[in-house]
Every structure is written in structure tokens, then in C-alpha cells.
């Protein structure tokens, strides 16, 4: 029998017992639908993270801290011995211990191969911000590290090349500060208060130039973003009157490296830093942790879909075993007329694969329609705060792989019945009542 006839016959046979085929297809449909939705979630969220990384930029920047204690166990919650130079960040199992860095440390970082430039990160400890003598709100203010950018919903990002004081607000500050909407805030004046080393409070006025978009992992998170001039001013004010030994100490520094470096070379660079007692992380590292979590969740969800598919696989075995039993005489007749065992095997395998194809194609298409509708609805409501996030997204490769994998599962499920059909003895089959 020619392959085309084999396929044609196999496909036709699929529809011979319509109810049975429909039920089996339905079982596969459920598995395929679930698998498509769950991997669609993974695709959607990871694509959003990738887009965010691309928007943030800073691919050639490392955030460097000094590791305080090599034996530091982040899961140990018992009290730590006091170290005047150590800062413990985070709480519980998330805490890490770092040591303040001095100019010597910065020089040491600068001496590591492939590091082009080092800048200390000086946080401004802001007391409050207010607009037009209105309510005072606590806030964190930070500057963008080189290479970083932020998305704005109104106005522009603070400009570093100017001596004017500029600042941008996260959207949560717009209404509390007394603005009608995002555009209303642009151009207004924000008063920022800091306390110096002698416990005297100073205020600085800055122009609001933008409202930042709330993103999953934007630079600074929910903090206000100052331009370099404002940041320098705030730091200078708060450092006034500080004892010398507390000046020029930094918890973090940013190190710029050659953007041409390959990921392996970046890893080598991090190892070089680690040898000197520093820890360096890129933006990608920070978000990589996110991606890993998402991937793990999606993997677990996919495992559930896999179980559904496994059950559907047994459905195929059952359906085809019944078909083989029912068509014993037909198989015997075909073998008596010279059809080879291999072709008989092929005939039933094609039936299995076709059932798999039907179930997966219908399941995948339905999942794409439902998934697109659901993420459309969510984007307008629940996820309106995360613009640009398509919760369930589909990429052709994943979709294609899903269908192929399900067809492969169907083929595997079909091997047992198909082999049973192929082994049938024509005489036994013809005598079969």
C-alpha cells in the first residue's frame, strides 16, 4: 500500500466509530488546551520581563557590593556578631551581609580586568517630599545608574546633563501630592527635605519633569528618580557635618564593563570580582531570578497538563485496542491479500497520530482564542497597572512543539494496539467470529 493511501485509509478509519473518536479527541483536547494556556503564561510573563530588561538597558553595568563574611549563612536567623563595617540587608532568610566600601575598595574593583569604570552609589536619605506646602510624604530618592532608563507615562526622564534640579514621580505619588493627573504634575515644584550630620533639616526644590511607568522591575522600583545634579545636592547636604570616618563610605558601587563581552566573559569577570571579595550582579541576574521562578511555576503547571495528556494517551490505547478487536477480520483480509505487517502497523499508528493531531490542533486553537480574550480582559482590568503585559502570549515555535509532542505521545500510545494488529495471523483473523 502506498503511503498516501495508508494515510487516507487511516484518517477515514478514525471517523468510523465517531462517538469513541470524539471522546478520545476530547480527552486530548483538555490536555492540549491546558498545556497551551500554561506555557502561554510562561511565554507572556517571560516576554514581559525580557521587554523590561531591554527597556532598562544597563546590560554593561554591574552592581558591586563587598561581601562581609565569606561564611555568611543567609538562612541562619540567630543574632550576628557586631561588625562596625557590616550592613545587614533584608530580613529573615533574605538577608545578606555586606561591608561598607572605601575608596581603596573602589580602586580594587577598577583594577579587575575588563572593568572600565567604577562609580559609588550614594543614596539620598530623604525625610519627606511635599508639594505646595501640602501633606508631607516619606520617599526614597535614587539616581539612574549609567545605561539605565525609565519609561514615563507623562513628561520625560530626568536629564543628567543639566545643573537644574529635576525629579520624576512614580504614579502612586501623583494624587496624594495634590495633582489631578500625571500631566498636571509635570512642571510643578517638589520640595525635598534632608537632615545633615548635625541633625539640621534642609529643603531643596526640584522640578517634576516626568511620571514614571510602574513596571515589574524598573530601576528604583517605587522610588523617585533624581537627576545627577539633584542627587549630588542632596548627598552634599546630608553629608555636611558628618564625622570624617563616615564620609566616603558606600554600600554599593556600579561598575561599567565592555558591552562587547560575551555572557561567559561576564561570568569570568564576576569570578574575578569574587576573588577580590566583591559580589557583582547585572540587571539580567536580578531578573534572571524572576525568570527562574516563573519557569519553575510554568513547569509545574505543565506537569499537570502532562498528567492530563497521559490520561488521554491511555484513552488512545483503549480506543485503538477496541478498533483492532472490531476490525480483526478486516485486518486478516488485508494480510491475506498481501498487506505487510509493517503497513498494518502503520495504518493503526496513523489513526493514533491523527487522533492526537485533531485533539491537539483543536485544543491549541481554542486555547489561543480563549487565552487572547482572557489576557485582553485582564489587561484592561486586573493588570491595568502593568502596561505592556500580555499575561498569556503565544509563540509559533512553542505552539508547533506542543502539537508535535502531543502527536508523538499519541503515536507512542498507538504502538501497543498497532503492534497487536500487525501480529494478527490472517487465518485466525478470518476464522474469527
Amino acid at each position, binding site marked *: *500500500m502506498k503511503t498516501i*493511501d495508508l494515510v487516507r485509509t487511516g484518517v*477515514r478509519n478514525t471517523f468510523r466509530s465517531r462517538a469513541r473518536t470524539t471522546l478520545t479527541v476530547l480527552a486530548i483536547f483538555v490536555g492540549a488546551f491546558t498545556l497551551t494556556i500554561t506555557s502561554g503564561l510562561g511565554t507572556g510573563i517571560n516576554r514581559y520581563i525580557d521587554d523590561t530588561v531591554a527597556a532598562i538597558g544597563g546590560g554593561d553595568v554591574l552592581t558591586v557590593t563587598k561581601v562581609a563574611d565569606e561564611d555568611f549563612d543567609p538562612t541562619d536567623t540567630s543574632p550576628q556578631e557586631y561588625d562596625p563595617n557590616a550592613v545587614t540587608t533584608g530580613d529573615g532568610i533574605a538577608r545578606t551581609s555586606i561591608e561598607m566600601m572605601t575608596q581603596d575598595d573602589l580602586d580594587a574593583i577598577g583594577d579587575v580586568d575588563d572593568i572600565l569604570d567604577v562609580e559609588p552609589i550614594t543614596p539620598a536619605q530623604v525625610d519627606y517630599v511635599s508639594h505646595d506646602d501640602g501633606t508631607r510624604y516619606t520617599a526614597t530618592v535614587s539616581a539612574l545608574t549609567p545605561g539605565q532608563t525609565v519609561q514615563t507615562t507623562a513628561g520625560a526622564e530626568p536629564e543628567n546633563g543639566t545643573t537644574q534640579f529635576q525629579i520624576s514621580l512614580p504614579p502612586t505619588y501623583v494624587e496624594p501630592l495634590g495633582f489631578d493627573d500625571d500631566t498636571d504634575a509635570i512642571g510643578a515644584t517638589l520640595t525635598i527635605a534632608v537632615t545633615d550630620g548635625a541633625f539640621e533639616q534642609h529643603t531643596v526644590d526640584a522640578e517634576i519633569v516626568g511620571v514614571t511607568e510602574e513596571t515589574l522591575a524598573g530601576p528604583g522600583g517605587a522610588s523617585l528618580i533624581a537627576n545627577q545634579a539633584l542627587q549630588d545636592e542632596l548627598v552634599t547636604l546630608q553629608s555636611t557635618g558628618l564625622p570624617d570616618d563616615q564620609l566616603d563610605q558606600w554600600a554599593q558601587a556600579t561598575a561599567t564593563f565592555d558591552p562587547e563581552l560575551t555572557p561567559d566573559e561576564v561570568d569570568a569577570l564576576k569570578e574575578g570580582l569574587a576573588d577580590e571579595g566583591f559580589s557583582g550582579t547585572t540587571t539580567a541576574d536580578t531578573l534572571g531570578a524572576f525568570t527562574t521562578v516563573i519557569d519553575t511555576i510554568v513547569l509545574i503547571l505543565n506537569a499537570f497538563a502532562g498528567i492530563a495528556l497521559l490520561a488521554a494517551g491511555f484513552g488512545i490505547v483503549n480506543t485503538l485496542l477496541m478498533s483492532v478487536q472490531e476490525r480483526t477480520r478486516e485486518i486478516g483480509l*488485508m494480510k*491475506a491479500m498481501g498487506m505487510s505487517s509493517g503497513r498494518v502497523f502503520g495504518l493503526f499508528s496513523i489513526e493514533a497520530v491523527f487522533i492526537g493531531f485533531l485533539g491537539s490542533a483543536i485544543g491549541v486553537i481554542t486555547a489561543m482564542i480563549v487565552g487572547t480574550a482572557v489576557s485582553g480582559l485582564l489587561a484592561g482590568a486586573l493588570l491595568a497597572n502593568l502596561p505592556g503585559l500580555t499575561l498569556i502570549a503565544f509563540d509559533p515555535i512553542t505552539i508547533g512543539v506542543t502539537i508535535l509532542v502531543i502527536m508523538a505521545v499519541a503515536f507512542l500510545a498507538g504502538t501497543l494496539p498497532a503492534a497487536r494488529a500487525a501480529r494478527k495471523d490472517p487465518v485466525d483473523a478470518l476464522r474469527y467470529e
Partner: protein
Amino acid sequence: MLDPLGADTQGAAIISVRDVEKTYGSGAGRFDALRGVSLDIREGESLAIVGKSGSGKSTLMHVLALLDEPTAGTVLLDRRNAKELRSSELNRARNKTFGFVFQQFFLTPTQTVLENVMLPLTIAGMPNRARRAQAMAALEQLELADKAKNKATDLSGGQKQRVVIARALVNHPRIIFADEPTGNLDTATGRTVEDILFTLNREQGITLVIVTHDDDLAARCDRRIQIQDGRILEEATR
């Protein structure tokens, strides 16, 4: 090698069996269906295998048609030992050399008459257009051309058996094996089907091997072999 048996041969032996035994089961359930049968089937003859029900007629026919392997003894197809045939050669022989007519028809109910008749050609891998033409020719020969598009289940018993004969001869076989071809038909329809088979034998030289317990049908054959308890009881030539 085989020495020719009778001198009165119509032609060379297509199939020869020597001392063929067939045993089903083992131990207490053991049953000897064939107990040493030797027989030649000659090109162009018509041979009737007769005997009581359960005597081993169908078993012998299956062995002759290379559908079943004997427990002991040899089967020769064109002087070649069937045991030495590769499975592709065996399949080719079943497809091209033999045609089958069964008492229970064995038509696929979901397919059309034409598709049923085409089956041996489809299995042989003949292109669609050619096999349709050849199957239509076979149906015309049996005056069933107008039924080509019907479902096989929509036909009467006699029509079904004519479809089965059309399927048996569609690939121009050298032998047609018929196991009780008239067993499910009334006498008149049975006669028509017999006439068709003997016409094929006479006009196209197709060898006939007919299993039957109908003495009238057996009497129309060139040669008849009576089987009893798995042995040839007597052989008679017309």
C-alpha cells in the same frame, strides 16, 4: 525436488503439498486437523475439495494458499519451498498469484463496492486512477458497474458474492481459492455464482480450488478430492 505425480497433467503444478500435517493445540487439547496430505494443483484445472464439516477442508485450503504454515511437510509454490520465501515474496504471492472468495464475503461495510474491489490493487500500491479503471473493468465483467458507488452493505447476497469474485479476479490471479462460495446463497443464485467461476476457469484459464460440501458443485470440477479426518479419502477425476 518433486517428481510429477500423475502423467495426465493438464499443466505444471503451481502448488504442491507433500505429507502435510497440521496440529492445533497441545497436550489434551491437541487436535490433528491434517494428517499427511499430498496433493498437486495444476495450472488451469478446477479442483473441488469436499468432505464433512470439520474434516479439514478449510485448513487444507489455507495451507495451499500460503495463509497458514503446516506443522509438518512441505509446500511448494512454483517448485520453490514456501518456507524459503521472504515475507515480501509471500505477500506478493498472496496479492498477485491468489484471489480469495469466502463464504462470509468479508466486504468492508463502510466502503463503496468499488473501493472493496480495489483493495488488492491498493495494497499492491497501484496509482489511484489505474486501480479505479481496473476495478471498474472487473465490476463490468460481473455486471455490477452500476453498483460501483453503493455501500457494500446495500447489496443482496448474490450481488455481494459477485463483488467478492470481482475483488478476487481484479489483480488477474493465477488461482482463485473459494471456500464454500455458495454456502450463504440460495440454489439459483448459487448456480449463477458457480457459472461465473467456471467461465473464468474456461475462458481466462484461472485455476479454481473450491472447498464445498455441495456434491453438484463438486461434480462440475475437473477433479475432486474427498477429505475425511484430515486425510484424503479418495480422489476422482472427471
